[in-house]
């Protein structure tokens, strides 16, 4: 994929980095989700402090076509606040777990953002004109005494500096007992699903006071609980189909036409495991942290602790492709269990043509796998490569034995520097990579 030059190999270059430079990271600044909108013009991030920041790609400068437009701040707002459930004595974090964009229907943009308990539909609209010349109001807003009005005028719209406003249009609350991990908008653009550890609900975007429960895996006796839902997504084209993944490494595909409550799956995707290979860690590392359909809808990708798997929806008994993200961690599982890193939830994403997949790792490394050439590359999100159009140098981790120059040994990896969230522009080779509190944007080299 990288640097051999020629052909279709992509050379990734640093483009921009957003966020504070200092190492002392405030908890609120921890980035918790990154998502491009359907055109790729807008890039949204959510953080642990409940804030959303939206970046907009500036129009390409036709004269200077050495790079694509930069992403600059377009809007920022407080999406969720910390709450306290007094009935259950439960604190509800304001951390934004997921953001999903709606396809654009009119001048305004809409997105869904969710924390552990409440989903909100936000409208982001531009205002570049304002009315002036009211008869009963002064320009500063004070009301005039009607008896002092001697002539009438027609108020007119005058241009003003662009203002981008975000307003909550719908609040979908009180439908989840457990913590929401996923939201996914249906291809019908009218409904969406929200999934927590044990249940999945179906909502209509217009209706906030009710939702339909479509999956419920809560056992009658909680002592019998053996698995939880870890992620869920609607199929990109079939409005009746969705999948959900579990902590046991399985994915279930459900068809909403089959029954109202989709507790019985239509398909169960599971890779058989050799029982003699089982260890204490097996189940934990098989837990799926993310599931994403390909744009085509033919495949889906899952991320577990050590690998990325591509599944053909027509074949349930094993994935068609498996890519090792950081196999060298297998001999570190004990310490990764002790420092809780083994429970880190990495996400994964497809490129626009479904030919390359990407996911994050530790030490601010991220990995890409080209499905056609079978080549993979490891890159690093670091301020050391700060110059725009500097081609990123591939990184290599030395698992054991002699460490070559420029390689990094497993023991030197910084496990506090995790890249959990990455996003790929729907059409171009532009990627957004989130480190703990910084957002990096990389582009392929444009000659």
């Amino acid at each position, binding site marked *: 994929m990288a640097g051999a030059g020629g052909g279709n190999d992509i050379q990734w270059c640093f483009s921009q980095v957003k*966020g504070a430079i200092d190492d002392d990271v405030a908890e609120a600044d921890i980035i918790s989700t990154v998502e491009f909108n359907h055109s790729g013009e807008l890039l949204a991030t959510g953080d642990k402090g409940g*804030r959303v*920041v939206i970046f907009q790609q500036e129009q390409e400068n036709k004269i200077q076509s050495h790079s694509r437009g930069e992403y600059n*701040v377009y809007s920022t707002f407080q999406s969720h606040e910390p709450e306290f459930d007094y009935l*259950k004595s439960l*604190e509800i974090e304001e951390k934004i777990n997921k953001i999903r964009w709606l396809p654009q229907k009119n001048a305004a943009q809409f997105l869904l953002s969710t924390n552990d308990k409440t989903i909100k539909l936000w409208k982001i609209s531009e205002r570049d004109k304002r009315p002036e010349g009211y008869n009963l109001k002064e320009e500063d807003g004070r009301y005039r005494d009607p008896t002092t009005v001697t002539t009438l005028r027609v108020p007119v719209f005058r241009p003003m500096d662009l203002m981008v406003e975000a307003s909550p249009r719908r609040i979908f609350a009180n439908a989840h007992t457990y*913590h929401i991990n996923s939201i996914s908008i249906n291809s019908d653009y009218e409904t969406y699903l929200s999934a927590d550890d044990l249940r999945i609900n179906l909502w209509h975007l217009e209706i906030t006071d009710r939702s339909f429960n479509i999956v419920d895996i809560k056992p009658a006796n909680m002592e019998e609980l*053996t698995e939880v839902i870890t992620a869920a997504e609607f199929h990109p084209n079939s409005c009746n189909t969705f999948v959900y993944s579990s902590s046991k490494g399985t994915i279930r595909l459900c068809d909403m036409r089959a029954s109202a409550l989709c507790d019985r799956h239509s398909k169960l995707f599971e890779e058989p495991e050799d029982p003699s290979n089982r260890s*204490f860690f097996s189940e934990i590392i098989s837990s799926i942290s993310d599931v994403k359909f390909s744009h085509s809808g033919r495949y889906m990708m899952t991320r577990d602790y050590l690998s990325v798997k591509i599944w053909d929806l027509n074949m349930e008994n094993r994935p068609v492709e498996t890519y090792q993200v950081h196999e060298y961690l297998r001999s570190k*599982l004990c310490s990764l269990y002790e420092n809780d890193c083994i429970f880190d939830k990495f996400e994964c994403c497809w490129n626009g043509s479904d030919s390359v997949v990407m996911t994050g790792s530790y030490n601010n490394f991220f990995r890409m796998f080209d499905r056609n050439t079978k080549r993979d590359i490891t890159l690093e999100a670091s301020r050391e490569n700060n110059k725009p159009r500097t081609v990123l140098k591939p990184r290599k981790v030395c698992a054991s034995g002699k460490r070559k120059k420029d390689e990094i040994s497993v023991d030197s990896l910084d496990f506090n520097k995790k890249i959990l969230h990455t996003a790929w522009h729907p059409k171009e080779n532009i990627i957004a990579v989130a480190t703990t509190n910084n957002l990096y944007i990389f582009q392929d080299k444009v000659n």
Partner: protein
Amino acid sequence: MSQKQEEENPAEETGEEKQDTQEKGILPERAEEAKLKAKYPSLGQKPGGSDFLMKRLQKGQKYFDSGDYNMAKAKMKNKQLPSAGPDKNLVTGDHIPTPQDLPQRKSSLVTSKLAGGQVE
């Protein structure tokens, strides 16, 4: 370009590594398991079972129940309430959260640093 030298032939390397992984793949995992069991002999037999999941379901739950708190205070009389250890986030056993244990409700009105005019 210089990058070519640093990259080994991916096909060869994957082949060798793959074989290695399959042979030794499970041994490192088992070795790690043995290490863990040596450190924590009481670790349950069913690793993926209820314990993990219940902990996950209760993620982030820190609660202050005034009823519990006052009952405990009354029982304890002059004695100290069992208070949180260094890790205030874990509420375990007899520990009843006290108002001091709860994290400060922070003001969330600060603008994100991503939106600030930082160096790019």
